[in-house]
């Protein structure tokens, strides 16, 4: 759905169904007939239509607070440059026609040599690596990759991911460049998955691409497979317990030492701005007074009864008790359910026995499972998240309850393309962790694999309005890039992408099909 419901509107559909029992129309106005139900539906639909506005994320380019190291270093030999200028002065200068445009012509259209003394004080921050100066003047100009930039991130979250996130958060646009793909063929993890497209199908006949009509909203919670009514038209079975967010991503609990008060305020306001949710430590939420529909307080399962402290939250997340990693804490879950009307989600790490834990949680009534791989996208046995998400998704299908449980997943999501690929693998929504840090021009220190060990710093004197706009820009850019992928496939709703493995192609499979009869090919993918 592209209609952006307010929280109230988002619940209208549920309320419409609940109305037969909770709003007690039957008691107030007599028996609820099909005609009355129809007229109520019409009324609500009219109200909804009257309040319609197209969902949109307001992006706006913002300045850097702590710019990344620039891409290139530019070294100019001063003697070489002076010699060149002298030679060209002798060659071109005439008193009646000094030819200054020729003598001082600079080989850069981007302004690297645009300062008052030109190449004697180059501006490497403007260099885009076209190499024209280094080719035109090989004797004294060098353009080098900046090692400071190359050192950002780690082996999984590379400087390439970080610079992409930085650009997306600065401009809020889809990065567009000339030239073709520059990287390796296929690759591990998400790189080994390609998304499909259709030559003739598109989401809609309307508009340039129809992509403005593609829906990115997802439902968090549970939808019964069918409704049951009694002879008086009352719903007797379960009703939907869910709410809708407008983008298929949420902000995850900041890993390591990133969960500061200022970051919490930024993700809270951004979640409200774009209509999603942010998972934050429950004690931090209380301390900062951040309780709102856009916050999912995360607490230990044994503290479940404290869920009542967050009356505005639509979702509470429970983590397992340290020291009892594989025991399903049913009492904590039940206590949380008793203490709040919010949806109670369970966070499960992809560690040994996660499948049993997930089954236990679902049996106990959990409607949302938040799955966690490490930040390289791997479970404890090294399996990559695309396989783990798929396994979780298939488990629910086999149990016949896929639509009754929402799967949120995190770990290794550091590029816009990872969102649709994770959804294709079976998730309803992904949770963003490290991208938040890099969107705010934070710096990481050391490995970015273990959640608990992540260390990072945000820019000093963080302007929270600036930070909110950066994060909003990132979300706008990633949503637009999701629309590009969905538009190419001809898929009209991101919800329809969930678990659609057929919408992806695995490089390893394609390679096998193409190269199986070639000598020396042993499979496994590039």
């Amino acid at each position: 759905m592209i209609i952006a419901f307010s929280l109230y509107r988002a619940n209208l559909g549920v309320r419409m169904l609940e109305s037969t029992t909770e709003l007690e129309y039957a008691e107030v106005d007599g028996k609820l007939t099909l005609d009355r139900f129809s007229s109520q539906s019409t009324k609500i639909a009219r109200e909804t239509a009257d309040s319609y506005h197209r969902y949109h994320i307001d992006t706006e380019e913002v300045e850097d607070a702590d710019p990344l190291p620039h891409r290139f270093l530019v070294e100019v030999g001063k003697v070489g440059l002076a010699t060149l200028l002298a030679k060209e002065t002798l060659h071109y200068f005439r008193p009646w026609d000094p030819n200054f445009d020729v003598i001082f012509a600079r080989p850069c259209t981007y302004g690297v040599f645009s300062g008052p003394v030109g190449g004697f004080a180059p501006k490497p921050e403007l260099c885009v690596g076209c190499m024209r100066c280094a080719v035109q003047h090989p004797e004294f100009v060098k353009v080098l990759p900046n090692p400071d930039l190359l050192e950002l991130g780690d082996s999984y979250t590379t400087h390439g991911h970080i610079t992409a996130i930085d650009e997306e958060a600065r401009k809020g646009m889809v990065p567009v460049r000339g030239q073709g793909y520059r990287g390796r063929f296929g690759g591990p993890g998400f790189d080994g998955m390609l998304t499909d497209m259709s030559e003739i199908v598109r989401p809609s006949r309307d508009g340039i691409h129809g992509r403005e009509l593609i829906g990115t909203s997802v439902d968090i919670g549970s939808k019964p497979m069918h409704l049951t009514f009694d002879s008086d038209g009352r719903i007797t079975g379960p009703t939907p317990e869910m709410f809708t967010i407008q983008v298929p991503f949420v902000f995850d609990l900041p890993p390591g030492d990133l969960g500061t008060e200022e970051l919490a305020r930024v993700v809270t306001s951004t979640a409200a701005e774009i209509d999603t949710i942010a998972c934050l430590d429950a004690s931090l939420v209380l301390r900062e007074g951040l309780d709102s529909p856009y916050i999912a307080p995360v607490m230990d399962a044994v503290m479940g009864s404290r869920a009542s402290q967050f009356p505005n939250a639509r979702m509470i997340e429970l983590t397992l008790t340290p020291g009892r990693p594989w025991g399903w804490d049913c009492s904590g879950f039940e206590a949380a359910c008793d203490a709040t009307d919010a949806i109670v989600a369970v966070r499960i790490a992809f560690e040994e026995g996660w499948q049993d834990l997930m089954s236990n949680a679902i049996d106990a009534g959990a409607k949302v499972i938040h799955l966690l791989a490490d930040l390289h996208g791997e479970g404890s046995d090294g399996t990559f998240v695309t396989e783990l998400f798929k396994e979780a998704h298939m488990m629910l299908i086999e149990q016949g309850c896929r639509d009754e449980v929402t799967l949120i997943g995190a770990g290794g999501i550091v590029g816009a393309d990872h969102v649709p690929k994770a959804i294709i693998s079976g998730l309803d929504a992904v949770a963003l962790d490290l991208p938040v840090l890099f969107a705010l021009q934070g710096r990481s220190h050391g490995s970015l694999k273990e959640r608990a060990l992540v260390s990072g710093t945000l820019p000093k004197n963080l302007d929270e309005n600036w930070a909110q706009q950066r994060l909003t820009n990132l979300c706008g850019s990633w949503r637009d890039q999701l629309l590009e992928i969905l538009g190419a496939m001809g898929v009209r709703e991101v919800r329809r992408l969930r678990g659609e493995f057929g919408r992806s192609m695995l490089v390893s499979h394609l390679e096998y099909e193409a190269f199986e009869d070639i000598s020396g090919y042993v499979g496994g993918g590039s």
Partner: protein
Amino acid sequence: MQLPQILVDAYDAYKGKIVKPSDNLLHKTTGLLQNGMNARAFGEYPSPEALGDARWTDELILSTWYMAETGKVPSDMNFKTGKSDGGFDRLDFQFLPEEEWLEHSEEIDTAIPLNRRADGKHDLGIDIPWYGGGMSYGSVSINVMMARAKNAKRWNSYMSTGEGGYPTELYEVKENVITQVATGYFGVEEETIQAAPIVEFKYAQGAKPGLGGHLLAAKAGEEVAKLRGSVPFVSLFSPFPFHSTYSVEDHSKHLDWIETVNPQALLSVKVSTPHDVDMVAVGSYYAGAHIIHLDGSYGGTGAAPEIAKKNIAMPIELAIPKVHKFLQKEGVRDKVTLIASGGVRTADDIAKAIALGADGCVLGTTDLVGMGCTRCANCEGGPSGRGCPWGLTTTDIELQEWVQQDWAEMRLDNLYKAMQWRLRDILRKLAMDDVSQLRGRTDLLRYIGKEGVE
């Protein structure tokens, strides 16, 4: 509303702040550029540290420059493969023992036919198994376009207009120019279809499959806009897909339409590489296509969303065998010409594509590299908004002068000579005297592990 600075700059340039270079400046700049390129290609200076990427390594770029300068393959650089760790870069030929090799000879035939339908239309062919891919006026300068077209004429090959109209200058070499009809119909007129020996329907482009075309505002200057029937300095987005095509039957009507306007023209259908590309190819054949042109996902572009380049659709190496085998199963393989593009960089890549099942290839980026491109990826306009600083992918009044037509045509001619030489070299080492004998011979390929990648 305040215009973005990039557009203000572009407009200022158009209004005269940036002017055509003086003769002295032209002489100086082109001299420095050309001398510098040669010095780098001949190894007088070390390879620039920041040059190249996994697909186009510094060696591949510099060796292409060397070939464009000399017409010969270099002896001390890897001119065959990149370092992408897969696809063409992991394939090599299993050559015969040296005593079975043929002599290197111009008698080794590199020509291929394009019309295999025997339907009474033009009996067209090309002397080398590749032609120039579509790069529109606007995405590249008129100098680049004319250099490519003239070189195509020299080699009895073709060059596609891309989707940007048909500049008047092209009529000079119209026998070697393919008119492209793409989803925005920019510049498509009855006259330009009637002028074309081949009309190419572009359904999708490998670098941005399913996303239509993009020419950003800063590059859509007055001349470009006039040719496309649009407003200057307004971004032009071709829709995706054809708004009149929902089936093979609709597609067939498109081809019928062209046939009505130009009954003798061959029909080419350019598609990208989705999972069902084999079905698309067969459908295109039955709709009447003479040429099925597959454009793989690692192909070039003047502007494309970064997310599309790697992630949507499949690389050409994986699509060719799929389509080739399916056309064989359908019994129509010898009635249609299969052309591959999208990441085809070298003569070795062309030979490998043919061994995988293609008849020939289309080149785009290779031509640009031959003329000086360093793959800096600022074709869409870059931070300056003026386009390519080398003068290739730009219509900027000043920058486009850095690529002079005669010089560029000479470089392409040399590059093609070297590539044809290398292609013949491969064929002779396989004891083949005709490139058509190589088609589908995957038994002559070997897959090399990481330790074998140069």
